[in-house]
């Protein structure tokens, strides 16, 4: 009963037009029957946010995987503490990198939406926007974006008050699939009320992924995120990670 994990990012049309890199990044790992995944969205106005999103996603997943044996024994408070420690150390490492590069930490600004999910339970951890969804048999657990009053304002791990914006959402039941996405993918992956994925998108995607290996599935997912129809919906980068339980 291992997780199969598919992930892809597609550069948004505004980033293409402006010669910007894709500022989204994702990373994932398996530890026994536990899934660990992170999606980061680099701030559009921060010059090195593509480096920030890549470093944060990879370092966070590695650090959690290194503590993989302990995951099954954690309660909610224990996980909240672990997530806080791991993100603190990821952030410190990024600050050292920024200092060496003679740059401000804010130049690496990125949001974080992550998941640690076992056979029966798990948690989302989240700073800023993006969405996490665990699909149970009947319903979903969702970690929603946190924006300021305005839709184009959010919070970043690099912000001084990131701990105030760190949200842990327990997933208390088994899930058949888990999705993490950046805010660019949200308009077409999520349904209008944001309480569940949009079935006409997610069902054909999951049906397809169930029949292919991880590499082929991630490549097809990348092509889907880059579909010209998405440019009528968003000009932002789009990232989607989907984990399916066999």
């Amino acid at each position: 009963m291992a997780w199969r994990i598919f992930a892809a990012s597609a550069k948004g049309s505004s980033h293409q037009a402006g010669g910007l890199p894709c500022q989204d990044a994702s990373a994932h790992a398996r530890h026994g029957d536990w899934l660990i995944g992170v999606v980061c969205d680099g701030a559009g106005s921060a010059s090195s946010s593509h480096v920030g999103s890549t470093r944060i996603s990879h370092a966070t997943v590695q650090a959690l995987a290194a503590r993989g044996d302990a995951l099954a024994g954690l309660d909610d408070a224990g996980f909240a503490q672990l997530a806080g420690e791991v993100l603190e150390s990821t952030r410190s490492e990024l600050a050292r990198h920024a200092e060496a590069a003679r740059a401000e930490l804010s130049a690496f600004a990125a949001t974080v939406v992550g998941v640690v999910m076992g056979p029966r339970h798990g948690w989302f951890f989240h700073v800023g926007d993006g969405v996490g969804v665990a699909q149970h048999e009947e319903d979903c657990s969702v970690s929603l974006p946190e924006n300021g009053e305005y839709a184009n304002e959010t919070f970043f791990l690099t912000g001084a008050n990131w701990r105030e914006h760190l949200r842990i959402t327990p997933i208390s039941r088994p899930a058949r699939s888990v999705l993490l996405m950046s805010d660019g993918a949200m308009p077409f992956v999520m349904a209008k009320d944001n309480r569940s994925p949009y079935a006409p998108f997610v069902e054909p995607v999951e049906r397809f992924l169930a029949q292919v290996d991880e590499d082929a599935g991630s490549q097809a997912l990348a092509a889907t995120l880059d579909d010209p129809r998405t440019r009528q919906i968003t000009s932002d980068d789009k990232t989607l990670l989907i984990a399916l339980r066999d």
Partner: protein
Amino acid sequence: MTLPAIPDVALVDNTEQRTPLVLVLDCSGSMDGAPIAQLNEGLSLLEKELKGDVIAAKRVRILVVRFGGMDTAEVIGDWCDAMDFEAPVLEANGTTPTGAAVELALGEIEAEKARYKQSGIAYTRPWLFLMSDGMPTGPWEDAAQHCRDAEQSHKVAVFPIAVGEGSHAGTLGSFCGRGDAGVKRLAGLQFKELFLWLSTSMQVVSQSQAGSQVQLPATDSWSTVAV
């Protein structure tokens, strides 16, 4: 090599993000003739340009507030999505009740935001676009203070535009936090360029993403340089 995408996938926009824009337009007697004709052309252009952008057409919400007549500030029509916006044909006559018009616009903005909140609709900061060619008639200082306060508490972004020689940048500047420096002066009657700029800016803002600093287009095509 282009890889095939996953078949039979629906790709539709389920977001309901909005960018509210209130046009507060001086239709006093001094605007009669060429200015009001070109303002009307500018509004038609705004309609056409926004309808031509698939994302902006869905997200930008427009309200027109006209002021003129017998010290009258009035809403023309109602809030509507840019895709449904039909540029009004405005007539110029009467006085310049700038203060009453701005108060009306600020109230409409808060009411519109309250409706978004009630329906769970995300939105970007509303724009208040204040265009005038003359000195206000009637009280305006309190309205200017309210407008500055609203801008300073990030409730609204204010863009005062001075038209012609009769307008006073100092007075219009009182409506925004940056004072005189925040006022753009329309070069001649470049309404067409002004509304093209507004349309392009709305396209940028309505599609802005979290954490982005919005880079607005340059205003040189319609604005004289402030000295």
